[in-house]
């Protein structure tokens, strides 16, 4: 049972990481807490529902298309709605709530309130030591690791990634060095939206799809980044794995309600004892 608990925790943790990466990226660069992140996750699942479920596209092509569409939509939303609010945390947060409710309502009108399911592109299981690992979740975990590695390499070695880090560290100094902050904001928002939609698209065949499916993952992403540190990419990875594993162990040994309470107790303790999170930095 211990092996199964670890496997369950890691599989959940990987998807939390992908969700949290985009969330923390937007905060790190734009200082905006994007509460619409869960709705971008939902939108990714809806795109996959349509392209893969209804039109019969290849699953990975549908997921990638969901990512591209999200990036394009994210760039437009950032430019029109969020750019004027960069650095203003409260108005940015309210705007993100408005965007989230709007996206939810659009999905409700287009697809109705019922939860929908699509055929799984991968089925069956494989054995890892004494744990049973479903193939569909294995694919999600591998995809999450690939996305995480690509994201790390992008931040570490690409000009745009380095510029993003520079803006996150000090927007004014980066601007003096010739970094155009507008491009960075649009790119960060587009990438964050793409990450959320990739997560939603990957999870679409595993869970049910509905207008409100993004609420819980959004909550989890929030918990993860508070634990890891708002704006910290390594923090999101650490936080995602810790929350995934703690939930798995506590849900198995006690109950899912206990696991949920524990997640928020951890957040409360972190906020009180280390407000910047495990690997976060203070506000500039």
């Amino acid at each position, binding site marked *: *049972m211990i092996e*199964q*608990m670890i496997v*369950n*925790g890691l*599989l*959940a943790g990987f998807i939390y990481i992908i969700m949290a990466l985009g969330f923390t990226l937007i905060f790190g660069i734009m200082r905006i807490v994007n509460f619409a992140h869960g709705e971008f996750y939902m939108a990714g699942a809806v795109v996959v529902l349509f392209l893969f479920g209804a039109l019969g596209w290849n699953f990975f092509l549908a997921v990638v298309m969901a990512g591209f569409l999200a990036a394009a939509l994210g760039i437009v939303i950032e430019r029109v709605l969020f750019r004027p609010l960069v650095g203003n945390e409260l108005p940015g947060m309210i705007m993100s709530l408005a965007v989230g409710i709007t996206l939810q309502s659009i999905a*409700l009108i287009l697809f*109705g*309130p*019922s*939860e*929908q*399911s699509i*055929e*799984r592109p991968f089925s069956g*299981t494989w054995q890892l030591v004494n744990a*049973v690992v*479903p193939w569909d979740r294995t694919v999600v975990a591998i995809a999450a690791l690939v996305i995480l590695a690509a994201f790390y390499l992008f931040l570490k070695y690409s000009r745009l990634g380095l510029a993003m880090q520079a803006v996150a560290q000090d927007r004014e100094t980066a601007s003096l060095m010739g970094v155009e902050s507008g491009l960075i904001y649009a790119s960060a928002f587009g990438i964050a939206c793409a990450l959320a939609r990739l997560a939603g698209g990957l999870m679409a065949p595993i*869970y*049910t799809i*509905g*207008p*409100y*499916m993004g*609420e*819980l993952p959004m909550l989890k992403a929030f918990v993860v980044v508070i634990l890891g540190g708002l704006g910290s990419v390594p923090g999101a990875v650490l936080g995602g794995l810790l929350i995934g594993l703690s*939930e*798995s*162990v506590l*849900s*198995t*040994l006690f*109950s*899912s*309600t206990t*696991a*949920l309470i524990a997640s928020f107790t951890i957040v409360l303790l972190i906020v009180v004892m280390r407000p910047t999170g495990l690997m976060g930095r203070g506000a500039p």
Partner: protein
Amino acid sequence: MKLKHYLTFATAGLALGLSALTAMAADTIKIGVIAPLTGAGAPWGMAAAEAPKILAADINAKGGLTVGGKTYKVEVVAYDDQYKAAEAVAAYNRLVNQDGVKYMIILSSAATMALKQNVEDDEVVAVTAAYTAKAIEPSTKYLFRMYSTPADYVPSFIAWMKDNVKEKRVVVVNPNDETGWDQTQLSEKLFKENGFEVLGHELFERAQKDFQPLLTKIIAMKPDIIELGGTSPATAGLIIRQARELGYDKLFSKTGGAGPAEIVAGAGAKAAEGVINMLYADPANEGYRRIAAAYKASVGQDPNEILVSFYDGANVLLKAIQKAGDPSDTGKVAAAFASVLPMPSVQGDQLSLGGKAISGVDNQIMTVNYIGVIRDGQPVVIGKTK
């Protein structure tokens, strides 16, 4: 002088318009609906909202509902409570204070428990789908339950399982709320009384979608029946699928909250094969097929079978209003339930008034439920509950 003349004219016109509107409102019987129209409970909530609308459309198409020699149009006003008591209270206040509603359908146990005192104080006649036994007490006058509760039909359901199912080791799984707690308590007791070995019970939050940790724990108990009780059908589908992935190849049963189509959609036909579940409707019944087709024409999706119970509940309510002879006297309407029942359901079964054995008062419409099994992705009726 001219201005004064115009003002007098305008005031008279406004007064006439208002009196015409009042007259129109007086010729309408409004039925309020408080139900989750969004989220995992939406298939039930949409059925709660659409069933009275289908009935109202039928009645209005024939010219309206004749009460005491006067004809009334029937109008349905539905609000979303998101399965939350606080939202239900807001919806109730809006229905009573703004929309002038005196008749109501309430879906969830949480909403009913939050509103039951208001319903009695405001003398609003309400029909509830709440499973919880606590919803109706001996002093209850205006609140009626629209169908038999698990306490009524689960005994015969589990007795049927005793005779027809060879597996005996049960784990009970339910949502962590009023409905789930009651269902857990009841089914554990009945399984034990019928010779089943209850290995334990697990509760989960309604928004939960990842059940692997919970199922890891359950599978370690080595059950041969997982009873899903009041779990919403879409969630039940997810649980079944995830359990099959973890290697569980034994039986699932579901004594409450029917919805075989959603179970199959969530689990897949292969994983859902053999699931024994309670059905509100016989999918082959002509009466049910008619209202299900009307639902699909309106919503664009197949209904949850609970549609039939909401249709019958609304029908009994309107018949009671007719019998009372005065829609403004809700006390008379509440008393008229006893004289309109028994009456036939839309499926042709007999509806009667009962519930005294459990609640201490006959404020419950007693219905017939079916026992179904999923075969090749379709529910097949294999028995009836008493």
